[in-house]
Each structure stands twice: as C-alpha cells, then as structure tokens.
C-alpha cells in the first residue's frame, strides 16, 4: 500500500515538473511582457501546487505534510497579490497593448 502511494506521488511530482518546465520554456518563447506574465507565471503556479500535492500524497498524514500545507497556503495567498502588483505597476506606468475594450 505504501509502495503504491509512493509511486502515485512520484507520478504527480513528474507532472508538476513538466508544468514548471513549460512555464520556464514560455518565458523565452513570447516577445511582449503581458503575454509572458499571462502564460508563464501562472503555469509555474500550477507546477508548484502539483509538486506540493505530490509530496503530501507521498508522505501520508503527519506533521511534515502539515508544514507543507502551511507553505502551500502561504504561497496561494501571496502569489496573486505579487502578480497583481507587478501587472498594475506596468499598467499604470504606461505599458500598453494594441487592443483594449
């Protein structure tokens, strides 16, 4: 049973790594800032959440998983605020795209 849980955790961690690698790939793929932040940073967040979920599955229910849940909760609360602050700073400072409605 524990062997099976460990394999499931490993597979979930590998999926998360693929998401993270896609995010880093996308940061060099696009030419302008808004498409970069839209795709890259957020896919990176998906990878983070997936890797943490995989670690929780792998370790089972103990204090170690509790601490990982604390890290995850902190990241989920603070990450959108940081992204919002960067994007709003760019918007206010006059970085524009062609279309707006």
């Amino acid at each position, binding site marked *: 049973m524990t062997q099976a849980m460990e394999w499931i955790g490993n597979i979930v961690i590998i999926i998360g790594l693929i998401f993270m690698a896609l995010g880093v790939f996308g940061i060099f793929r696009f030419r302008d800032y808004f498409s970069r932040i839209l795709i890259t940073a957020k896919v990176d967040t998906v990878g983070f959440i997936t890797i*943490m979920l995989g670690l929780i599955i792998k370790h089972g229910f103990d204090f170690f998983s509790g601490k990982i849940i604390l*890290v995850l909760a902190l990241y989920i609360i603070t990450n959108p605020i940081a992204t919002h602050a960067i994007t*709003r*700073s760019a918007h206010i*400072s006059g970085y524009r795209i062609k279309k707006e409605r």
Partner: protein
Amino acid sequence: MDFDSIVLTIIAGLSVFGLVRVLDGPTVWDRMLGFALFSSKVIVAAVFIGIIINRTYMIDVALIYGVLGFIGTIMIARFVERKGDV
C-alpha cells in the same frame, strides 16, 4: 542517486533560467517576473533539501523565504509604480 535528488537537480537547473530572464529582460517588469519565478523555485528546492537530509527545519526556511520574496516583489513594484517614492 534516488528520485528526490534528480528532481532537486532539475529544479536547480530551471531556476538558472529564471535568473537569465532577470539579467536579460528588456523592461523592468520582466526582471520582476523573473525574480518571482526564481523565488518559487527556491521554495520548492528548500522543501526537497529538507526531504533529502531528513530534517523538518528546512520547511521553516522555505516559509521564511516565501515571506521575504513576497515583500521584496511588492516593495519593488511600489517603487516603480510611484516613480521612486515608496
């Protein structure tokens, strides 16, 4: 070399690319984006180091690095937004 060490190596390699974006970015917001990417990689790497050496205090390090990265990003964004007046 077990599974966790391989994952840690891959994450360290990915974080280098985030730093390349910080050095290379054409605008200042690209640099901030690269910094946010790098700090999330550092959090994951700290948790994996804690698993490999089998100590739980490394997760506290990850928590504190998360708070510091958040405050750094917010402060730089405010600094740029108000054109030098924090």
